[in-house]
């Protein structure tokens, strides 16, 4: 009986080890991450509007049906990234996500940006060059440093009424997205 108890205790310890391994390894093995899905939907350095999920239809990225989304995937190894343009006065936000789907940076137009989005993305080497004034950038560029080269930028825009959606999405698709050539 004592021996069986010891085996059960060993099973419990082994179970806790398996649990910790699962938690730590899952992000490395997952094929359904947001990054994998966005990569399949987009081309590098090209802004892509994400289609609204139809009622009852699949919504793999779990998008809010009340918002319009634009995504731009960038490889900072090809040069610093820029996402810029003018957006409507409605609520909008921008987030920069790393290759593992974590949000590196985010902000909203409530933070004093107004209607103009001018976001510059730099990897650590480019940030150093920027500090040494070896890269020329536009004045007023919101500078974000990314530890990884492969990032994607998500712009969310909230039309006040459904009837405004089409017009707002046209504005959203007019955002510029690409790499600066050094």
């Amino acid at each position, binding site marked *: 009986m004592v021996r069986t108890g010891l085996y059960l205790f060993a099973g419990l310890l*082994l179970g806790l080890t398996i649990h910790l391994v699962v938690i*730590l390894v899952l992000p490395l093995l997952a094929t359904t991450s947001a990054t994998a899905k966005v990569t399949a939907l987009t081309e590098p350095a090209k802004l892509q509007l994400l289609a609204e999920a139809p009622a*009852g239809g699949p919504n793999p990225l779990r998008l809010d049906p009340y918002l319009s989304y634009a995504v731009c995937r960038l490889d900072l190894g090809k040069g610093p990234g820029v996402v810029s343009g003018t957006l409507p006065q409605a609520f909008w936000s921008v987030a920069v996500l790393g290759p593992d789907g974590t949000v590196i940076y985010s902000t909203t137009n*409530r933070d004093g940006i107004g209607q103009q989005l001018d976001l510059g993305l730099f990897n650590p080497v480019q940030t150093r060059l920027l500090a040494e004034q070896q890269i020329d950038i536009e004045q007023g560029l919101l500078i974000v440093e990314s530890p990884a080269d492969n990032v994607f930028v998500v712009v969310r825009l909230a039309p006040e009424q459904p009837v405004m959606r089409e017009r707002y999405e046209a504005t959203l698709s007019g955002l510029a997205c690409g790499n600066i050539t050094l």
Partner: protein
Amino acid sequence: MRFLINLLLMLVVALGVGFGLSYYALSDGRFFGGYQVGPWAAWPRAGAPDPDPYTRAFLARNGAIQLGQSEGLQFVATADSDGHPLERDCTYRIDGTTPIATFWTLVPTATDGSDIALPGGPPGFHSQRVARNNDGSLQLYVGKKLRPRNWLEIAGDGPYWLVLTLYDTAIFSGVSSAATALPSIIREDC
């Protein structure tokens, strides 16, 4: 023979505890990383640049485009305030107040994330398009049977989730309303 039985028992316990605990922990963050108020669960670190390992595993499993911390926070309810799983054959009243946010949306979804609101109608509730009481509180009804005031008709059968997304909220800043201001989910009838 006894050795083999003990070994088998140990492996069953190890696999059950290991994978069961992982599933349970990542369902709504019941151990680490999650934040629960009544039926509502959120992962506050999901929008942070340095999430903890449990939140990181949740992000990988969930596969959604996460909201950054300054963009907002998402709460998900899989059960009502009494702990019963949400069923499409029942009518629920979402009753109370919401934390301060620029706006919020409340969308019923199937477990795979698809919207289950009746096609042709609104996909959910929007804070700027609901009728409120004089004190700012609200009663929202979700179900197949007609209800007064704010009613959202849903379609299909089976379990579902309610997804409450607060945009531009200061819920965890300590200077705004507390997360305890989340509404209750009351089952009316089935």
